[in-house]
């Protein structure tokens, strides 16, 4: 059932974020305010509670519930940004879910993040992981790739995108305050976005 798959995505993402909570917070300490791991962990814990408390009926509903919960519970920059990603995906996702449909919804979500954050690729934000992932998905769809291959490529693209933030000077978010001193550090939001994509590849791949 597609609904369970999406629930599993958030369960796995929560597991990965929790396991990497201190790393995410450390990344945020270096160029931000040392709360990204805590923020996401708190938010995802609430998401799982919400999903368990009033189980949604569709994959799309899982996404909107998760997005709304993140907006309502996280705060900070990442709360509204991740919240908008999933809410927009939920709105755009059609049933039954196909790989192409998912890729389209994901792209809409990423565009929502870019709009809200006024960030473009290379600003050293979560967009630097999300946008390449979306692009990889779209290419995989075009090439008629298997779901597992497509999601694997998306996860890899996100991971590479996150690492690619290291040499960048931040132009958005808290890291931008550091100017040149932001160079040489991975963006925490890009790193957590890579975890989301890895979680998806692992449950649906």
């Amino acid at each position, binding site marked *: 059932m597609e609904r369970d798959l999406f629930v599993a995505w958030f369960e796995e993402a929560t597991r990965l974020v929790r396991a990497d909570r201190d790393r995410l917070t450390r990344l945020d300490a270096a160029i931000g305010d040392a709360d990204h791991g805590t923020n996401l962990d708190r938010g995802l814990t609430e998401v799982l509670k919400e999903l368990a408390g009033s189980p949604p009926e569709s994959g799309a509903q899982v996404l909107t519930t998760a997005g709304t919960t993140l907006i*309502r519970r996280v*705060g900070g*920059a990442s*709360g*509204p940004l991740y919240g908008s990603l999933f809410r927009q995906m939920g709105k755009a996702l059609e049933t039954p879910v196909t790989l192409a449909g998912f890729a389209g919804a994901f792209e809409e979500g990423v565009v929502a993040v870019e709009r809200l954050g006024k960030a473009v690729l290379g600003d050293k934000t979560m967009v630097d992981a999300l946008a390449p992932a979306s692009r990889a998905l779209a290419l995989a769809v075009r090439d008629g790739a298997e779901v597992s291959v497509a999601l694997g490529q998306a996860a890899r693209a996100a991971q590479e995108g996150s690492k690619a933030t290291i040499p960048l000077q931040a132009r958005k978010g808290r890291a931008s305050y550091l100017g040149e001193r932001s160079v040489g550090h991975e963006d925490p939001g890009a790193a957590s976005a890579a975890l989301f994509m890895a979680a998806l590849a692992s449950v649906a791949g």
Partner: protein
Amino acid sequence: MKKLINSADSVVEDALNGMAAAHPSLRVRDRVVYRADGPRPGKVGLVSGGGSGHEPLHAGFVGHGMLDAACPGEIFTSPVPDQIIEATKGVDGGAGVLHIVKNYTGDVLNFEMAAELVEGVEVAGVLVDDDVAVQDSLYTAGRRGTGATLFVEKMAGALAEEGAPLAEVAAVAAEVDERSRSFGIALTSCTTPAAGKPTFDLPETEVELGIGIHGEPGRARVPLAPARELATMAMDALHGDLPLRGDLLVMVNGMGGTPLMELYVVFAEVAAYVKGKGARVTRSLVGNYVTSLEMQGFSVTVCRLDDALTRLWDAPVETPGLRWGR
């Protein structure tokens, strides 16, 4: 990590309980701190908020002549839209509500979402962005809001208390921000309860120039120097951005872990600097007002006053963190 807390998870909640117990003039409900005597019909409501860890900002500035409500987020994490929506509705006396928002991506996004979602209340917003340590540019997040937030809250609050309409209150808030600049220097890092260790490591012999109020590292590190030199660095940064002229409101603000005595040492240097530029400190504030947990260090905020703003600064205020005239 050594802190007077029960647990990292409960610290914001516990502190709010303490505030509620200590100040009968406040009401705390669902993570919003309100004036107990509000809302007042016909009065513009002032709502601010942001991450916790900056106390007394913002909740300590709720009361007569200043804020009507504050929305405290988790430590260094902006509040969520629900809090802001509740606060906005809760303080509306029919004359609309001003959101005073420090310019951080998180604060801006959450306040924007709340402003969109709240129904039946006219909402205006002002963005505080006074920190000259941050390069301002079209392509970045822009300057941070730090010390000037207190000035904006005080002066806009005084005008609102007089019954001015929303547009005027918002305009004065923007004007105060426009006329204010800040610069901060840290001697030590802070430690967030959740992280449990210092956000940055700073050797015994160095200071961070141009720090914000969230333990963000600054723009540069320089060797520890006498207060006179550190004050000069801060003042040069301010003066370089907005020349010191005429009557000034000057705040020497502690970052939370710096004793008052040292802030007075800095203030003496700042006052001498201002005099040297031919300007006048006509109003001042020395103390821990816009803090960063237990960080040691200071920030200087300067606002170029005119008679109207001086009058608003002098107007009575009665909050836990700032009080005079009543």
